[in-house]
């Protein structure tokens, strides 16, 4: 499973993106469960967001959803944090 996160906007307007490929990872099933829950709560079109808030696109094996601060689910927040931290 390939999990990609792209973060845009924010006060600084600096874009960040990262990707995690879970194949061969010991914690793959944990990633899959988190990714599915994050996807399920996402939207197919970008939400309006708030001034200076971050906007996110999460793409899992070609399926893309959108979300924006501060209205993230706990799973979305956790997934975004892990991918941007551990991903390449």
């Amino acid at each position, binding site marked *: 499973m390939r999990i990609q996160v792209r973060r*845009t906007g*924010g006060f600084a307007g*600096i*874009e960040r993106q990262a990707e995690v490929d879970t194949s061969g990872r010991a914690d793959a099933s944990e990633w899959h469960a988190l990714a599915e829950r994050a996807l399920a*709560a996402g939207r197919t079109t970008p939400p309006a967001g*708030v001034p200076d808030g*971050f*906007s996110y696109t999460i793409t899992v094996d070609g399926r893309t959803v959108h979300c924006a601060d501060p*209205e993230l689910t706990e799973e979305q927040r956790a997934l975004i944090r892990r991918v941007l931290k551990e991903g390449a």
Partner: protein
Amino acid sequence: MVAVSDRLVTECNGSGMTTNGGHRPVFCTIVPPHVLDRLSQAGDPLVHGPARRTLRRDAYERTQRRLTTVVGAPALTTRAAAAEPGTPQRTVYDAGHGTDLPGEKARGEGEEPGQDATVNRAYAGLGATFELFLKEFGRDSIDGSGLPLDATVHYDQDYNNAFWNGEQMVFGDGDGEIFLDFTVAVDVIGHELAHGVTQYTANLDYFGQSGALNESVSDVFGALIKQYTLGQTAEEADWLIGAGLLAPRVTGVALRSMKEPGTAYDDDVLGKDPQPATMDDYVRTGRDNGGVHINSGIPNHAFYLAATTLGGHAWERAGQIWYDVLTGGELDQDAQFTDFATLTLKAARARYGEGAELNAVTKAWERVGVRTL
């Protein structure tokens, strides 16, 4: 639960006008209170967020209705806790590195400073912003009617951002690697509060050129608040946004430069400051709401040029002209750069006649390549 949260967001996460002319998110009120109570206990913020806000708002409105009945208080008052007109009513909350807003109350109006420097900086920054708007522009808080000023600090973990959520300011601590605590720059605090002023006045759409104008207005007033706090003239000011916010290892001086857009940073990790100074380098993009933090460099630079041409305190004449445009009622929500620029000429003429001010503003827009009508 997924179906419930999807529906809740779809139906409730719109936006509309408040009774006092402001613009804030609208949340459903048709959901029965017992359902809201249950939703507000949910673990999922997408579910409990709107539910909790609705409950808070409902409680507030019920109290207002009771007050109206009992003592005949005006129904539309926003001065809920009765601050004296012309005095701020600040509350700083601590999110404790979580994401529930507003968090625990850390310092209220008139309370002595505590041990937390971040809380104290936010409190002081709210005060400085309130004072500039009141003393220089005659505006009583961000809505013009004494709206309480709320800010939450220590939001989330390693959070590299600050934002305005339609009701309050929110500040992260930064990750220490790239960004430091977002309250260290008073212009950032002013920037977020200015989003509130824009929301209650011209309410510029946060997309494309109107979004870049929305961003630029926040940078302009953020910079003015810093200059006002330091007592600086236009010549003395650094015209930087977010100076001191970048961690020591980052190659850069700030996040944006109004004096020289595109030069604030050039770093291996962050990349290079993408801001244009003139229309020749206008960036067309769908990202960042159509480049709102990128193309804001153009109106930012126009303000810098007008203010430094006029000299002296930038909030006195250039700032007054920008404020007149923002609050004058003629600036459309979907205004383009040309619309804003044209209104600054009109405002300069109305307030100062055919003089140095009109000349400085006209030249400033010419130099950044924005047409005026």
